[in-house]
């Protein structure tokens, strides 16, 4: 089946004859005999049958549109403008590949240059690559880059780093003999500066997230950067770009490298992927030379006309092989372009407004949530709010689900010291009725449990 994708299925004999082969098997005469086998796989099906089958499978999912959902923790339900989806499905974009042939790929190259430019404006840095796989892998690359630039092998991160990201980071540094040191949080749920001062000694890099895993804005981010620099370490900031309409560009707050998640703009949740890692750095030779990933540059053609091309490639695997700054080849270009289109559509006022809406919605959510739980830290939250409940959180989760509401992300398995705490999140998509329903139902569930 699937012959409708394979035009020459109809011309086997004719083509074989023209090139002097007798059978298809002759084309495989170099393959060890005895190994060619019948595979134990289902027969192919018509497109219609597969259409029905896939729909049936997918209908077993319950989406965030079908139940108010308060999950965040590194993946957020944002609304993506319809035109963004339409544009990235344009087949010239989606069916092309890495723009190796610049002249015939000017569209993708310019779109990626614009992505780099938009991110550059957001994060306040001049050098941006055309994407890493996601925030976590971008962080892993940043730690490795810091170690190469500073020729030291310690990387300092908050203890309250996103656990998912932390796991990726650990795998990425394992083979480079980089040691990860964790700094505890203070009573405000933010990096403890006293401990940081100790741990930053001899560090190649110091990392902080904005907002942090608890959804909290690290208010002493500048001081953290200063501590990093006093210890001759690179200051690496991880950002959720949707906050950057209201928060100062990390580049202006001292960041040497900015990583983050571009797919929070332009992409749906998609069960966690595809995503796209932001990777940006300062315009300094020593940093650029150690940068991972593909970079698009503006130049001109032989007639002096503006043109775009992949550049600074001597860092990359196809040239440097074992000595490359990273092994990345395919990246997340289309996800990056989607983020760029979304950002361009928002504009400066739209991004600022998006940040404000989320900030206000989070504040309102916190206020309402405090009626039924204890908010873990007194700080400013953006999207995620950690809340501690009187009864075991899994019970609340279970009962909420029965009532058609999906609660948050249970923190106890990762941070047992926080007790019955869950991370619940809102965004600009959250409706007031959803919050009402959550609070009402949690109250009932707690009352029932205490009876």
């Amino acid at each position, binding site marked *: 089946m699937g012959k409708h994708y394979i035009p020459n299925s109809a011309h086997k004999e004719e083509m074989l004859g023209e090139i002097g082969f007798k059978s298809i098997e002759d084309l495989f005469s170099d393959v060890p005999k005895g190994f060619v086998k019948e595979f*134990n796989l289902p027969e192919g099906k018509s497109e219609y049958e597969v259409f029905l089958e896939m729909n049936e499978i997918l209908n077993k999912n319950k989406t965030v549109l079908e139940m108010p959902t308060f999950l965040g923790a590194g993946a957020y339900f944002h609304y993506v403008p319809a035109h963004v989806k339409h544009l990235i499905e344009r087949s010239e974009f989606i069916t092309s590949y890495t723009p*190796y042939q610049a002249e015939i790929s000017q569209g993708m190259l310019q779109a990626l240059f614009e992505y780099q430019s938009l991110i550059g404006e957001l994060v306040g840095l001049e050098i941006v690559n*055309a994407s890493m796989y996601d925030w976590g892998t971008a962080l892993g690359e940043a730690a490795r880059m810091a170690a190469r630039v500073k020729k030291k092998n310690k990387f300092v991160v908050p203890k309250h780093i996103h656990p998912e990201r932390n796991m990726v980071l650990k795998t990425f540094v394992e083979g480079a003999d980089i040691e990860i040191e964790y700094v505890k949080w203070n009573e405000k749920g933010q990096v403890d500066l006293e401990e940081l001062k100790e741990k930053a000694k001899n560090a190649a890099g110091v990392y902080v997230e904005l907002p942090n895993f608890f959804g909290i804005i690290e208010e002493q981010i500048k001081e953290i950067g200063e501590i990093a620099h006093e210890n001759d370490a690179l200051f690496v900031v991880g950002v959720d770009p949707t906050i950057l309409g209201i928060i100062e560009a990390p580049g202006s707050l001292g960041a040497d490298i900015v990583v983050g998640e571009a797919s929070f703009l332009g992409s749906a949740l998609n069960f966690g992927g595809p995503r796209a890692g932001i990777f940006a750095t300062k315009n300094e030779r020593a940093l650029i030379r150690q940068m991972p990933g593909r970079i698009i540059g503006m130049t001109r053609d032989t007639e002096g006309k503006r043109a775009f091309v*992949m*550049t600074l490639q001597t860092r990359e695997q196809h040239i440097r092989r*074992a000595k490359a700054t990273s092994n990345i080849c395919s990246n997340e270009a289309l996800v990056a372009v989607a983020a760029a289109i979304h950002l361009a559509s928002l504009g400066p006022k739209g991004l600022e407004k998006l940040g404000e809406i989320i900030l206000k919605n989070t504040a309102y959510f916190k206020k309402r949530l405090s009626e039924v739980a204890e908010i873990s830290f007194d700080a400013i939250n953006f999207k995620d709010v950690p809340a501690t409940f009187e009864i075991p959180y899994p019970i609340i989760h279970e009962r909420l689900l029965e009532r058609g509401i999906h609660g948050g992300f249970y923190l106890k398995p990762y941070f047992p010291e926080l007790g019955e705490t869950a991370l619940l999140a809102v965004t600009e998509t959250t409706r007031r009725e959803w919050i009402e329903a959550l609070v009402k139902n949690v109250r009932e569930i707690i009352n029932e449990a205490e009876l």
Partner: protein
Amino acid sequence: MFRQAKWDEPLIFELSKPGRVGFTLPEPVEDIEVQIPEDLMRKSLELPEVSEPEVVKHYIRLAEMNYGVDSGIYPLGSCTMKYNPKINEEFANHPKVAFIHPYQDPRTVQGALQIMWELEQWLKEITGMDRFTLQPAAGANGEFTGVMIIRAYHLDRGEAQRNEIIVPDSAHGTNPASAAMAGFKVIEIPSNEQGMVDLEALENAVSERTAGIMLTNPNTLGIFEEDILEIAKIVHKAGGLLYYDGANLNGILGKIRPGDMGFDVVHINLHKTFSTPHGGGGPGAGPVGVKKHLVDYLPVPLVEFDGEKYYLNYDLPKSIGKVKEFYGNFAVLVRALTYLKIMGRDGLREVAEIAVLNANYLTQKLKGTRGYELPHKELRKHEVVFSAEPMRKEMGIKALDVAKRLLDFGLHAPTIYFPLIVHEALMIEPTETVSKEELDAYVEALKRISEEAYTNPEIVKSAPHNTAVRRVDDVLATKKPIITWRMYKEFKRKGEVDY
């Protein structure tokens, strides 16, 4: 043939007019004042101000200056630029895919988990492996996963001295780069005159320090490594493992399996063999499969099925951890499963057979054309690597010039200058989804370029002539890097650029 549009399209920043907006947001649920500390408040933000119709026209014009698989033949060797079925897109964009959160209770995402579980079953049978992780985002991310697994395996067995990975000189750059990232020393071995692994060199390279070998089969010349069983024996005997770079699986799909050839770890590129679109560079997906003895080291979580329900299993104490957030590029996995269900057993075999027929058809039709030579053996699998070395020697025309001239004919160029062991390499992979007429036209174009090379070389050297821009100055791009709008503005202000 593709006719590229020639728009003088400004940057989106240059289209900006104060006051225009491209999207309307909902209002906050309540208008609460929240005070951000003064020193953290955003001071300025220069983003373009454009309306939705302008955004749409801008990106449509950019699309019209881009070549994709739907525009014409795209025979980029090693990349398997096959047709991307549209039904795949329908499911990748399905609300039941788009609107599910990765941390949802497994009971609410049984469909998503079933898709991952079913895909794993297909991949296991296709490759002859025992278990798969679908987490890696691309081939290189899969390679890194695979070599980390190899590392964990040897460490677990108390063989920390196994710190070398062997890689043939024909290997893709990601192979040595991934091995180095995992902390291995890379030992490169030469190919023989047939274009295959030199067994003697391999014998000399293996030792008690060998952790494994990374192989692509068919290799990057499109040649099947006929001695694969012997290679496996040599490496296994030395205590090393075999890693299969699945970039070229299209050449043997549905016919023979890496697992039966002795490989212990494989990665597959869903964006090559299994028809998911390349997205202008990504997203792809690079699932990794292993044999039984390596299952314990796979990344977490694995998708399990207990006969009734699907669930995520994090209980793998020896796991290498995670190589990517969450469960990988899920929307890409959805596309691949859709494709597999349509193709089925016979369809997949047909894919390999016609991919190989097309490559050999092109090889035979082009062979003997003046200026191109065909190094190494003739019988190829899914791709072929010609060399433009005679043309360079005789007329000063390089593989790069041939590639650029092809663009003038509305055809995409092959991969050039890879593999590194062929001078002036033209690496052509037609795939099974092009027609005989397209192959004939491609051969015709390459022959015409050969003719031009010997009669009117200037037209080839100065190509392309018909594209949106003429040959791009990449030397200038490196000498004077302009990576972002803010850098550009600065150069412009100083009067250092006039483009």
